[in-house]
């Protein structure tokens, strides 16, 4: 708090770049708070899932239909993409735009294959007769896993937008902030997936 107050005292208007950086810091804080709200969103979905996780209503159970190898593969892919997005940040800190974009491309490709696997899993489940309207359990399953998938997809679009901006503008306080928030988001989704993998899949087949 004191920090910001001091910055103001020095008169930010003269130092344009400095004022900008201040502003970008503000956006990172806001993004953290957004992640708090997103946490609660997923928390509510997890709670819902926990309540309904045995409500099969005569339909198939998770144990019957889950195929762990595919899920473990997508877990591995997503964890790796989190790692590569970390490498992207390292590249950014070294000021290497090309390397940064390169790692973002790798991250995006991994994210894309995660989504691909999820789609094929859902198709398989629907094929086996487990849909949104089969039972409360499957409603909760598709909603929880699907919401995570939608988050990842949004992240992919965002990543493409940022790569384009990086190419056009290079590293500026604004693009730096964007890469930082994107990587926060990506790590957050990774953490959510770890919970999801444990609660839904591991506990589901046990």
């Amino acid at each position, binding site marked *: 708090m004191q920090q910001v107050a001091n910055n103001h005292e020095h008169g930010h208007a003269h130092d344009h770049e400095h004022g900008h950086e201040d502003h970008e810091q503000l956006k990172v804080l806001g993004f953290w708070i957004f992640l708090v709200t997103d946490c609660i969103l997923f928390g509510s979905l997890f*709670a819902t899932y*926990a*309540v*309904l996780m*045995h*409500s*099969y*209503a*005569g*339909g198939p159970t998770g144990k019957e239909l889950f195929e762990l190898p595919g899920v473990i593969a997508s877990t591995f892919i997503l964890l790796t993409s989190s790692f590569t997005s970390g490498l992207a940040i390292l590249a950014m800190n070294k000021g290497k735009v090309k390397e940064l974009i390169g790692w973002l491309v790798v991250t995006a490709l991994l994210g894309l294959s995660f989504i691909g696997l999820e789609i094929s899993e859902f198709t398989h489940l629907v094929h086996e007769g487990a849909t949104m309207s089969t*039972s*409360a*359990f499957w409603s909760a399953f598709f909603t929880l896993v699907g919401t995570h998938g939608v988050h990842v997809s949004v992240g992919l679009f965002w990543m493409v937008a940022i790569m384009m901006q990086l190419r056009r503008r290079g590293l500026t306080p604004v693009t730096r902030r964007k890469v930082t928030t994107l990587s926060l988001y990506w790590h957050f989704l990774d953490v959510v997936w770890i919970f999801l993998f444990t609660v839904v899949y591991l506990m589901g087949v046990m």
Partner: protein
Amino acid sequence: MSGGKWPRRLQLAVLAALASIMLAGCGSDYVVLNPKGPVAQTQYDLIMISIILCSIIIIPVIALTAFIVYRYRDTPNNKATYKPNWAHSTKLEVIWWSIPIVIIAILGYFTVRDTYALKENPNKEVQPMVIQVTSLDWKWLFTYPEQNIATVNYLQIPAGVPVQFQISAEAPMNSFWVPELGGQIYAMAGMTTELYLQADHPGEFQGRGANFTGEGFAHMQFNVKATSQDEFDQWVKEVKGTTPAMSKEDYEQLRKPGLSEVLTYSSFPEGLFEEIVSKYSHGHPMETGGSMHDSMHMDGDKKESAPGSEAGEKKDESAHSTHHMPNTAMTPVMSH
């Protein structure tokens, strides 16, 4: 604006209005304040305790407000002390943090005590009688398993005998309420809630649904008649002798949305209530106050084939035994 007189007049008006309501409370239309059984009596006592405890705060605070507003009004002739920077007093703050704490502690004690008490039979000396209550769109079905009779929109009970109501619904959630006998409890599909009520003396009381269920909701009112045990037995005999039996088809008709007159049936299909409950309790563990109706869990697609079948019930009970703590379904988020 004419100085500080108006706010005080307003407060006097408020006090007068409150007092008139309290006094009027003696009238017999004030069903909540005219308890006719032990449960309603307990609740009446609590209401009175809470009114008294709250008055200990309300009356002095309103008086103090009136005094301060009048005393410290900004008029040329007002000689009251003016201390614009006096804004802290630990002593005073300790006092008014403590007052509400003490009051809440007292009220909390009575609340907790009676919360536990009301879960139980209010009259331990007498074996309670069971009546099953089903909320339908938009009528109440009462089935008497011990007498094997059924009524719609009418309830007759023996006075002096505690009645254990087992309550469910095959319609949107309702709430079963007979104010003169005691407070309400929800009627929910796929679940059974329990409520003990007892009428101390013969009499007629109003009963009604208290939770909105749609178009015909306002018409879900019924009379409750408490009679002596002899008269009650006589009535049961009469019902058995003179009214038609309820068939499955009759129930299906009743279930359809619409209003209904008072109806009585000399019998009802065996296990009807249990079947209604189990129809919607499949797939998730069922809550009850821990009665014998636990766990009529059945697979959805088998529901027509084996309602009430012993084997089916047993199997499912064991399958779901781990979820059998009371309240699992009630406060799902908490218990997981």
